[in-house]
């Protein structure tokens, strides 16, 4: 094993490690602005430069292989001076409106400026004026704050396989841009928000819905109802300095009530409902020669991806609305009816780990013509801001339970938040629907994990059901191609736009740390294991809903309220 000397101490280094890896492993922190762990180093930001004995120039530690006998100084005057100058250069044309910036406090550039003692704007601003892009319902792009680290470009291309944005122009005119700098709304952006998670500054952020939500909360005429997605309760803790993977479901409900939401529902309930419909749809397709494989439809980024990239395969998408929209429809119809409320007086908010849900909520199909079913979508981050703004000491709250009739959930509904969870939940119910019996073991562990594509064959009373899980929309392309090429053994495919599923959604607490994602997933499966009811069809509130209102899955009322349709989407790009 190679030995390298860093700052006077000797450390072992493995063959494929970079200098940065070795430093990190040994508690030596080197700042980076463009580094993404799982991806190839780009070497763009030059923040990670260190002094290597014998090298003429400073070398970037992120890409430089650690070789035997290297002598390195990571924090020499020369390296520090270089880093400080780089920060000063970035500040030359970075707007200094930190006070008003949504990323104040979580901005890498701001933090580095503090760490390196930058106290003044060294060089005069000389950059051309750039315009904010607010065309998308989900994301805002503020090129003035962009430091061109390229992380968003790489995530959009290498992780998501979408490539809605890229560098444009060259030299000092370089920007990150859509083709012809059109608005994101007409681009091929699927609103997943993964770019936001990696953006070191406030250049990319969700379109904020805090204003309309607080206005509604203040409005005495409005009954403000909120739902929260399964993946929110296991990530919100991080926003308040609590440990990743902690389930704060009860505190979340309490906080929402303190904020003034009149009714708090759990999207996991409508996830159970989705399972009822989706499992029935699968069975129906299998029995009636419907289009197979059937793809799940709960991830709105994926839906847009299909509409723009594979419009000829839309019949493969399940017609079920997502849990958010099912709940939205229930609130404005069933709930309104039973509480004798005018749907117009209900303001329906959802808290989602997702930016694409903002896009989904404003789709014209997602309402009954008088208005949208969901009025506003808040991301996990926005909710945390709202809680802080209202002076609620989150960790001092007492847990509370959600409201009826849409507050109870099964364990199956909860694991919707993780990649593989939808298909696991659906199979539990499908098995029951076909055979009338429960699976011997509800834990379908072969469907869990973090690989891009996971496949399994589940035996349902002698009928082999081929299922696949796609974690990250990029990987769907491979299966789609196989299906196009005539692959027939797959019946049901779950696709989550974001790698890992909703727990790693673009609306979640900012990070780019696979460890956190794992902790969140583990929390979901633990909740499922401890749940008194683990299958959707046994959720008593679900049973009641069908008995009293919907009738049966795929019935007429379901069709009207819970199903939707898709259409080919001409993106200008």
């Amino acid at each position, binding site marked *: 094993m190679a030995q390298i000397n860093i700052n006077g101490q000797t450390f072992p280094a493995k063959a494929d490690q970079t200098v940065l890896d070795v430093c990190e492993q040994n508690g030596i922190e080197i700042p980076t602005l463009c580094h993404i762990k799982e991806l190839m180093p780009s070497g763009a930001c030059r923040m990670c430069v260190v002094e290597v004995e014998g090298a003429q120039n400073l070398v970037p530690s992120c890409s430089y292989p650690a070789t035997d006998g290297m002598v390195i100084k990571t924090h020499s005057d020369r390296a520090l001076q270089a880093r400080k100058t780089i920060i000063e250069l970035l500040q030359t044309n970075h707007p200094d409106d930190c006070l008003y910036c949504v990323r104040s406090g979580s901005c890498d550039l701001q933090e580095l400026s503090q760490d390196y003692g930058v106290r003044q704007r060294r060089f005069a601003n000389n950059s051309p004026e750039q315009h904010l892009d607010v065309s998308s319902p989900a994301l805002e792009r503020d090129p003035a704050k962009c430091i061109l680290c390229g992380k968003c470009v790489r995530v959009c291309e290498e992780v998501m396989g979408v490539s809605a944005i890229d560098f444009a122009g*060259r030299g000092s005119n370089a920007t990150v841009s859509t083709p012809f700098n059109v608005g994101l709304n007409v681009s091929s952006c699927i609103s997943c928000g993964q770019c936001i998670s990696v953006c070191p500054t406030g250049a990319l952020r969700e379109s904020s819905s805090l204003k309309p939500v607080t206005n509604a909360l203040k409005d005495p005429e409005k009954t403000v109802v909120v739902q929260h997605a399964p993946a929110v309760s296991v990530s919100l803790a991080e926003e308040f300095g609590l440990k990743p993977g902690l389930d704060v479901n009860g505190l979340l409900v309490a906080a929402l009530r303190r904020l003034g939401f009149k009714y708090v529902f759990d999207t996991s309930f409508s996830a159970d409902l989705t399972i009822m419909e989706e499992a029935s749809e699968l069975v129906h397709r299998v029995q009636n020669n419907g289009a197979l494989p059937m793809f799940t439809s709960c991830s709105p980024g994926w839906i847009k991806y299909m509409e723009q990239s594979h419009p000829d395969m839309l019949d493969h998408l399940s017609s079920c609305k997502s849990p958010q929209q099912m709940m939205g429809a229930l609130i404005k119809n069933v709930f309104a009816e039973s509480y004798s409320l005018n749907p117009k007086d209900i303001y329906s908010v959802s808290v989602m780990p997702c930016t694409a849900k903002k896009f989904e909520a404003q789709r014209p199909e997602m309402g009954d013509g008088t208005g949208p079913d969901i009025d506003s979508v808040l991301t996990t981050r926005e909710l945390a801001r709202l809680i802080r703004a209202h002076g609620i000491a989150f960790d001092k709250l007492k847990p509370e339970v959600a409201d009826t009739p849409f507050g109870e959930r099964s364990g199956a509904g909860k694991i919707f938040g993780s990649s593989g969870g939808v298909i696991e939940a659906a199979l539990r119910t499908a098995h029951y629907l076909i055979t009338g019996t429960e699976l011997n073991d509800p834990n379908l562990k072969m469907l869990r994990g973090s690989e891009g594509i996971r496949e399994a064959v589940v035996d349902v009373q002698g009928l082999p059901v081929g299922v696949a899980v796609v974690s990250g929309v990029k990987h769907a392309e491979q299966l789609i191609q196989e299906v196009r090429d005539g692959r027939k053994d797959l019946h049901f495919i779950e696709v989550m736009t974001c790698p890992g599923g909703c727990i790693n959604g673009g609306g979640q607490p900012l990070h780019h740390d696979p460890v956190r994602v794992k902790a969140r997933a583990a929390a979901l499966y633990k909740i499922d294991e401890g749940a008194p009811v683990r299958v959707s069809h046994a959720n008593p509130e679900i049973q009641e809903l069908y008995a009293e209102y919907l009738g049966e899955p795929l019935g007429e009322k379901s069709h009207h309220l819970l199903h939707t349709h898709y259409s080919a989407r001409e993106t200008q790009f």
Partner: protein
Amino acid sequence: MEHLIIPDLDPILKRYPDPNREHLIPLLQDVQEEQGYLSKESIGVISRHLEVSPAKIYGVATFYNQFRFSPLGRYHIMVCRGTACHVKGSANVLAAICSGLKIQPGETTRDGLFSLEVVACIGACGLAPLISVNGEYHAGVTPAKIKRILNSYRKREEIHANG
């Protein structure tokens, strides 16, 4: 959204039958040679043909000096801004053209007659300063000569228009 006219690029696409990213720049060059510039629609067609996202194609096209996104003037002026040309006064030549045509580099005159481009080096440094108009070279130009050169093309256009 504006009405999309899908340009017929099939003859060009046929030269590059397989969707290989390596063909991207040659394809863009051919399309520009054919159409004078790269339109949104052309980029869309190329994107589908090569299975490369339009953002990537736009990124590539904006990286290189050669590509333009609006039609050229009937007379396309290229001003060499190489070192030798600079030392021999090409900055003044450029300024003279800009003020003579009232456009900046990268723009086209309103009548569509002239468009102006600055190029890094034409490679005829021995004859600096140099400009080229539709591929015709003018060597050793001065601000004073610019007026004459521009007028000669205006005149040519008039003759062309009248008969």
